[in-house]
């Protein structure tokens, strides 16, 4: 059984459109302190991308591996990425000139499940966890899914993406830990105020995702989470970016458990098998 799933998944992954293309930086904007939005002219990726997918960026310089960044928007020939400047690769990208050539592989990774027409969906995003939700929001609107977006951050200055989501026609509720924008409190508090959704989508810091995941699983509410990890290869070959999933989860390695192994979970490659997981498959206690 595990093998049939593996084989099926490999075929599915192999059939996904994947482009390796020369792209050019088309725009660059500081959207919050240390947060940047950079655009690329990349027609093949822009034409194929789905929500929660990412692009692996090779830029000039002494970098051993590509920089993987989640795709924020895709319109016409252009995609954008929204990221925080924190290491050498993100710093170089944030300060590159418009017109700089970069080499992109994408779109990589799986995407979210879209519910039936008329369903109710809630998107819960923390900080830069907003990234997968421009594409998802657009898709849900097109599918006539009633969509509510709850977007939170530590403080007002770090809330990014709300204007772009509203421009799509989405209803966006804001909250901040310090009350400087929207409701004071966490995105999870905002979940209490409404009737349950048919599906919940989450992306953000690990603590928020753990809490969201546990709540949805306890309430028996379908929930999908886009996970983040530090990637090595971005292609599924180095096994550097795994997350623990329950044994038998279809995105796990499917490898048997060793007799001497005390840990009772499986590992899944976020870069290749994810980044989207059913909350019920994720193991948070590992």
């Amino acid at each position, binding site marked *: 059984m*595990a*093998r049939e799933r*593996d084989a099926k998944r*490999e075929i599915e*992954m*192999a059939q*996904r459109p*994947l*482009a*390796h293309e020369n792209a050019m930086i088309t725009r660059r904007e500081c959207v919050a302190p240390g947060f940047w939005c950079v655009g690329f002219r990349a027609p093949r990726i822009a034409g194929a991308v789905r929500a929660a997918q990412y692009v692996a960026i*090779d830029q000039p310089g*002494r*970098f*051993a*591996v*590509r920089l993987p960044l989640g795709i924020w928007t895709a319109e016409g020939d252009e995609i954008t990425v929204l990221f925080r400047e924190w*290491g*050498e*690769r993100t710093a170089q990208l944030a300060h590159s000139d418009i017109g700089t050539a970069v080499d992109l*592989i994408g779109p990589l990774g799986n995407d979210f499940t879209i519910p039936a027409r008329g369903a109710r969906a809630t998107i819960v995003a923390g900080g830069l966890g907003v990234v997968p939700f421009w594409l998802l929001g657009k898709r849900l609107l097109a599918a006539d899914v009633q969509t509510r977006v709850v977007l939170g951050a530590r403080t007002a200055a770090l809330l990014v993406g709300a204007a772009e989501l509203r421009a799509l026609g989405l209803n966006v509720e804001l909250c901040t830990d310090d009350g400087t924008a929207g409701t004071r409190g966490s995105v999870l508090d905002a979940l209490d105020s409404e009737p349950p959704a048919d599906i919940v989508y989450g992306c953000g810091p690990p603590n928020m995702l753990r809490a969201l995941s546990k709540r949805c699983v306890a309430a028996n509410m379908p929930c999908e989470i886009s996970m983040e*990890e*530090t*990637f*090595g*290869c*971005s*292609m*599924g*070959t*180095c*096994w*550097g*970016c*795994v*997350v623990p999933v329950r044994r038998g989860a279809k995105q796990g*390695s*499917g*490898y*048997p*458990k*060793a*007799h*001497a*192994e005390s*840990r009772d*979970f*499986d*590992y899944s490659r976020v870069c*290749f098998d994810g980044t989207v997981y059913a909350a019920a498959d994720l193991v948070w206690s*590992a």
Partner: protein
Amino acid sequence: MTELARERIDPTTRIGKSELKNFVIAASGCYNRGAEFGRVTDVSAYGAITLKSVTLQPRLGNGMPRVLPAPAGLLNAIGLQGPGIEHFLAHDAPHLREVQTAVIASVAGFSVAEFAEVAARMDGLPNVVAIELDVSCPNVDREGECFAANPESTADVVRAVKARVRLPVIAKLTPNVTDVKPIARAAESAGADAISLINAVRGMAIDVARSQPWLANVSGGLTGPAIRPIAVLAVWEAAQAVRIPIIGMGGIETGRDALEFVLAGASAVAIGTANFRNPDVAALVADALVDAAAERGLTSVRALVGSANPSFAGERSH
């Protein structure tokens, strides 16, 4: 010396009795069976691909985080996550027929007997032309101590495996030693058909914001261009110590990089981390080696092997 047409240059090499169509091999732990990279490149540009190391028992591997980009490199501590030989034979081995080039199986173990057992079961699988012994993984043994840390334990593993398999056996050596030469000689004396080096260089990074080691395993192995000069020296010295073919690796990104290893004495080169930046690196390197031979008026890439190394002990080809 006249430049020869590229078509007249013999690009092949030999690892023991196995011939490879070119000098360029995908390094272990970086390429799976090639299906993932096959989505963006032609995997058959490789003369061979090396599988991720297989152990006797399944292994979940190290906790997270496992990787961290480093200056001109990648620090990793995966910990040999893998299916174990039973699951590998049942589920992965049948797909080896689909690989578009030759395959080198990689074996890891925690005892001499484990190496011999797993290697014996890999012998004769479809497309497999050699067996590499990962006696040098930096991320699974206490204090970085591995079989390749000393000549005797290296020889013990090689000898036990050679008694059980027909395919050529490659001992993959570590740079994390004072002197690689006696270890290379021990592998050769024990019957290894080739050696490959270097495995990752031990290293670590500290997350200063949290005041703790970055990697869950604390220490890891550094790969990528940062380690290339370390690797070139290791190949240079090993090539003066043994006659068997050497597969050189460590930070190769371009044809020029690969040529350094070949001139030092490598009869093949392996590429790992560079695939993560440039998936087309194999074709680039293979073509460049042929060009280098052509420019020097040589009829084969093999004729380049060891030509910068006055004390090269291997077989010279003309």
